[in-house]
């Protein structure tokens, strides 16, 4: 019998309060693990170095090819996509690294499993903390883009409802993909530290984060169109920077061929995002439950590996 079942059953309200407390504690632990190793200045540099470095590579690529006369729309497209990608890298890695950290480094995973709190809640809390750090990097990259590169940002022109809905659904889909990765690394060895980043790198191509999907072959565009991150990027990009290039549509794109119009509307974006997020979330949850069962049966929760 599991610790959760064996414990005295609390009422619904108490259970809710306990879940919130567990989530908050996990989030705080995640934040402390990530942030309390240094002073705030060094942590700030560390948090922004990765996303700003990634954006700088792309900005230079654009500038070198254009001879310094890059189309502002293309430059904006690259900067926004690169900035938002910080959420993906941080969110996907957060859950998977929590499993690896707690199993391989701190050797706490087995204790977390026998504690009365659902492991999923604890992992989501840890993942949320990393998303917070990713948001920090994304924000700084966007600020650099607006202040130094002249990204056309007008708070009064922003479609705030679309931005908030897209962002919320996007974060759910990122955490769901993170759940897939957490389930995967539960089955693999210690060297899986690089797996989340590899998956984020693969998705970077499929969702057209920094270039319009239409440059990809049609079958790959199709994969991109069923991925929630594609719609999330389109929603947030279009909401924050109205008039920005569409990553999904465009003349000759698969979307334009199938839908008969150049670009998706806001309602279409939200609908596609809801549907694809729902599918990914359910699949992520099922895969995680399967992985948990297998890990318990095979004794993988306290397995430590070397390399």
């Amino acid at each position, binding site marked *: 019998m599991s610790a959760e079942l064996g414990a005295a059953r609390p009422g619904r309200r108490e259970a809710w309060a306990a879940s919130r407390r567990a989530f908050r504690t996990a989030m705080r632990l995640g934040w402390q693990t990530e942030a309390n190793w240094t002073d705030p200045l060094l942590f700030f540099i560390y948090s922004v170095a990765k996303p700003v470095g990634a954006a*700088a590579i792309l900005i*230079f690529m654009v500038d070198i*090819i254009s001879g310094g006369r890059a189309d502002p729309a293309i430059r904006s497209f690259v900067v926004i996509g690169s900035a938002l990608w910080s959420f993906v890298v941080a969110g996907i890695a957060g859950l998977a690294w929590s499993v690896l950290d707690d199993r391989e*480094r701190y050797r706490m995973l087995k204790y977390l499993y026998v504690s009365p709190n659902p492991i999923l809640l604890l992992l989501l809390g840890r993942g949320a903390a990393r998303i917070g750090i990713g948001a920090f990097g994304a924000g700084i990259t966007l600020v650099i883009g607006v202040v130094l590169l002249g990204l056309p940002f007008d708070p009064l022109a922003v479609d705030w409802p679309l931005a908030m809905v897209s962002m919320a659904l996007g974060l759910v889909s990122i955490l769901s993909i993170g759940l897939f990765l957490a389930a995967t690394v539960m089955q693999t060895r210690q*060297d899986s530290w690089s797996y989340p980043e590899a998956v984020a790198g693969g998705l970077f191509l499929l969702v057209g984060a920094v270039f319009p999907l239409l*440059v990809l072959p049609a079958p790959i565009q199709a994969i991109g169109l069923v991925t929630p991150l594609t719609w999330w990027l389109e929603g947030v990009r279009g909401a924050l920077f109205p008039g920005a290039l569409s990553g999904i549509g465009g003349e000759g794109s698969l979307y334009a061929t199938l839908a008969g119009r150049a670009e998706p509307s806001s309602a279409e974006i939200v609908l596609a995002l809801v549907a694809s997020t729902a599918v990914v979330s359910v699949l992520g949850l099922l895969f995680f439950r399967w992985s948990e069962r297998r890990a318990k049966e095979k004794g993988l929760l306290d397995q430590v590996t070397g390399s």
Partner: protein
Amino acid sequence: MSAFVFRHSESPEQAARWDRRRSLATQLRSVYGRAYPRIIGARREPSWLLFEILLPFLTTSAFVFVYRALDAPAEFIGFVVLGGAMTAFWLNILWMMAAQLYWERDQGNLELYFTAPISMMSILFGMAIGGLFMSGTRAAVVLIVGATLYDVVFAVEQWLLLLAVFFLTMAALYGLGMVLASFFLLSGREAWHLSQGLQEPVYFVSGLNFPVARLGMLGAVAIATIPLAVGLDAMRQLAFVGSEHADGVLPAWMEALILVGMAALFIGLARWMLGQIERLARVEGKLTVKGT
């Protein structure tokens, strides 16, 4: 005479009182022993083929499509493929060399290394060889598949110099990895974060997807300090001869000389630093205390 009689000695190697031949054989066995789990581990965990080869190849492909979206000259696609192949080695340096001693401490292996009659250089050399197997495979796949899929045309005139530059880059990179391993061990909990922070910024200043010369002074500083930047710049010049876009900061032969200097400097520095941390571990007994 009993093996347990106390004898004052500077190191376990000295205490072992082995002749030169036996000592050398033990060092070689240590190199083999430390490389073994990495090579065998890769065979036993087939998932790395997907996560360490196929998916990173997709990341490289993303940059190829950025250039295609911009209608860039064909050589730039080649620069991305070459850069994508070289990232495998840099990631290997960061995660499987630099951060490794820090993790070995957490796993409890570090004190075993310090008490065994072997040199830490042998351990790190074994790690490097084992890591080279995985990163070399990944780099080869990115290079071969990338070049085939994206029609990259290499124009090489000096194969020997190109090969020499590649191996010198490896020597300098893994020497730097050994230096970082000591540095990360001394810096405690920051190893994890330092590895993270040294990825994209180093890719950028090394001119991973574009000629580093375009970065001006920043590129020149990178050429003087980062083996990845020098090696990539020289290989780009040697692999795309005649391209007006493959302009280097310095001529390739001069960059090869810089790599010789870097390899000697980093390996020498690594040897000194490893000696220091061994001494610190024995005299102060602090290095093997877990930091987490």
